[in-house]
C-alpha cells in the first residue's frame, strides 16, 4: 500500500537524472576522443571533386535492321607481297638510284621552299571548300546552287501569281499555260512569251503579268547563266 505522502508533490525524492547526465557526458567524451584520434592518425581516401557525370539514356529499340545493312568491319587488305627492288640494269638507272638515295636523307633548300608554299596552298584550298560537312565528297554545290535558284525563281513569280476571281471554279481545275522566259546574266528578263496558252485570256494575261512583275530576278549562278540566256526556262502555270 502506497502512502499518500509518496504521491505528494512536496515530498523530496532522490532524482536519478543527475547520474544519467554524468554517464552520458563521459560516454560522449570517449566517442569524440576516439574520432579525433582516428582522424589524426588515419589518412582519408582522396575524393575527386570533378568527376565526369555518367549519363545514361533509355532508348527504345528500333526495328531490327537487315544484317546486310549493318555496318561491316573493314577488313584490312593483306599487305602486298614485297617485291625486291629490281637490280639496276643500265648505267642511267644506276645513276638515278644513287641520286635518289643521296637526296632522301637531307632535303635541299628548294624542297623546303616548296614545302612551305605547299602548306599555304593547302590552307587556301581548305578555305575554298563549300557545302555541307556530310555532303558528297565529289562535291554537289553546283547542283545545290542551281536548285536554290530555281526555287527562288519559282517563289518570286508565285508572289505575283494573281488570277482574277471572276474565273469560274469549274474552269480553274483545267487551266494550264506555259510561259517561256530568258534571263540575262544580271537577272534581267530578256524575253517573255506565252508558249502554250490556256484558252482563257484572263488567265493567260495573269501568268504573263506575273512574270513581268516578278522581274528582275537574282543573277543566275555560273552553271545556269549561259543556258538561261540562250535557251531560257519554261514556266508551267496551273491555276490550282
Amino acid at each position, binding site marked *: 500500500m502506497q502512502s499518500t505522502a509518496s504521491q505528494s508533490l512536496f515530498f523530496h525524492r532522490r532524482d536519478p537524472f543527475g547520474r544519467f547526465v554524468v554517464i552520458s557526458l563521459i560516454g560522449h567524451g570517449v566517442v569524440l576522443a576516439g574520432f579525433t584520434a582516428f582522424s589524426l592518425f588515419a589518412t582519408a581516401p582522396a575524393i575527386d571533386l570533378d568527376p565526369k557525370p555518367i549519363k545514361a539514356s533509355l532508348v527504345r529499340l528500333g526495328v531490327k535492321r537487315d544484317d546486310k545493312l549493318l555496318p561491316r568491319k573493314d577488313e584490312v587488305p593483306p599487305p602486298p607481297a614485297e617485291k625486291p627492288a629490281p637490280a639496276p640494269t643500265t648505267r642511267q638507272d644506276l645513276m638515278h638510284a644513287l641520286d635518289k638515295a643521296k637526296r632522301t636523307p637531307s632535303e635541299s633548300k628548294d624542297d623546303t621552299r616548296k614545302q612551305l608554299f605547299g602548306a599555304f596552298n593547302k590552307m587556301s584550298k581548305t578555305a575554298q571548300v563549300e557545302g555541307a560537312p556530310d555532303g558528297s565528297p565529289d562535291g554537289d554545290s553546283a547542283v545545290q546552287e542551281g536548285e536554290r535558284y530555281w526555287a527562288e525563281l519559282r517563289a518570286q513569280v508565285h508572289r505575283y501569281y494573281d488570277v482574277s*476571281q471572276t474565273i469560274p471554279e469549274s474552269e480553274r481545275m483545267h487551266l494550264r499555260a506555259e510561259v517561256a522566259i530568258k534571263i540575262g546574266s544580271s537577272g534581267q528578263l530578256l524575253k517573255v512569251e506565252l508558249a502554250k496558252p490556256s484558252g482563257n*485570256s*484572263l488567265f493567260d494575261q495573269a501568268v504573263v503579268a506575273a512574270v513581268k512583275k516578278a522581274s528582275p530576278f537574282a543573277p543566275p549562278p555560273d552553271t545556269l547563266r549561259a543556258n538561261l540566256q540562250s535557251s531560257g526556262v519554261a514556266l508551267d502555270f496551273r491555276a490550282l
Partner: protein
Amino acid sequence: MTAVLAALAAATLSQVPVIEISNANFRPMPLAVAPPIVQDPGAKAAVAELDESLMFDLSATGIFQLLDRKSFLADTKEGITASSINFARWSDVGAESLVKTQVALADGNIRADLRVFTVATGKEDLKVSQEMPPKDARRLAHALADAIFKFFTHEPGSFESHIAYSRSAGGNKDIWLADWDGRRAMQVTEGGLNLLPAIGRDGASVAYTSYRSGKPDIYFQRPGSKPASIVKAGQMATGAAFSPDGRRLAYSLATGDNSAQIWVAKADGSDAKVITNTPFFINSSPSWSPDGKQLAFVSNRGGTPQIYIMGADGSNARRITFQGNYNQTPDWSPRGDLIAFTARDERAAFDLFAVNVDTGKVTRLTQDQGNNEEPSFAPNGRLIVFQSDRAGAWHLYVMTTDGTTQLPLPEEKGEYSTPSWGP
C-alpha cells in the same frame, strides 16, 4: 520540289528546264466602270439611277474590285469604242477590265450601250445594247450587270431577281416585294402582322404568314391585289416555301393536340398531305432542294432544334447539324451544295452558318457583327440576303456565300425582317 527536280533533270539533258507554278492567288478583278456618257440631257436622272444600280450590283458580287472613280478622271473625249479609248491611262490606274456605257433616249425609252474591254490588250470582250422605259432604269442596270456577270463567270446573274421581306411601320408588319437590291419596293399587304414571305415562280407574287384572322395562316397575294387564303386549317400554319418548279408548297402546320408537322400541298393549298409524323416534336421552316426531291427543315426531335433533311414525301429523314443546340431557318442553296442556317453560338449570339450537304462540314459566315438571322440564297446561289441588327435596328444585308463581301441594302423607316430571295 518535284518541279525543281524535274527542272534539273531536264537541264542535265540540255533541254529547256520546266518549272511548275501552281496555286494561283485568286483575288477580285480590278474593274474600272467609267461614268456613263449621257447623250441626252433629259436622260440624266435615269442615268444616275442606272449608274448607281450597276455599281452596286457589280460590287456585291465579290469577284470585282471596283476602282474608286476618284482615282481616274473622266476624259470627255473618250467614247465607248476601242479606237477612242486610251488604254494606257486605264492600265496606269490599275484596271484590268474596263466597262464603258453610253446612254441615249430613243422613242421614249432609255437605251444603254455597254462595252467591256480588256485593258492590257484593248480587246472588246462584250457588247450589250438594251432599252427600257426611263422608270425602269434600275432594271436596265440589273440586266447589264447580269450580262457582265455571265460574261466573266459563265453563270447566270441574279440581279433581275426579287426579294420579299416583312417591314414594320406604325405598329404593323407588312410584306414588301422589291428588286434584289431593295429598290423599287412595292407594299404587298396593308396592316396587321405579316411575315415569312416566299416569292412565287413568277417573281411577282408572295405567299406569307399572316395573323389577320387571330391565328397564323398562310395567304397568297400579288401587290395591288387582294390576299387569298391558301392554308387556314389547324391552330398555326407558318413558313410557306414554293418548290423550285412553283407547283408545290411546303409549310408547317399544327393541328389538334399535335405539335407542328411539315405539310406539302399544291401551290394553291389544295391536296395537302402531312409528311412528318412526330406528334410530340415540332417540325418547321421547310426549304426545298433545287431538284425539288428533298426538303430541309428544323425539328426538335433530338432534344434541341436542329436541321434535318428528308425526301419530299417525308422519307429518310436525317439530321445534318450536330454542333450547337439551337439551329434553325435553313435555306437550301439553288446550287445544291450548301444549306445556310441561323445558329445560336456559345456566346448566345445568333449568326449565320452553312453546312455542306454531302460532307456535313459547317462554315461560319458571320461573326462579331450583332445578330444575323434568316438567310436566303439568290436564285444563282452566289449571294445570300439576311437580316442583321449590327447597326441597331433590324435591316437587310447581302453577302457572298463565303461571307467575305457584306453590304447593307438601302433602307427606309422601320425594321426589316424575314427576307426571302426568289425569282
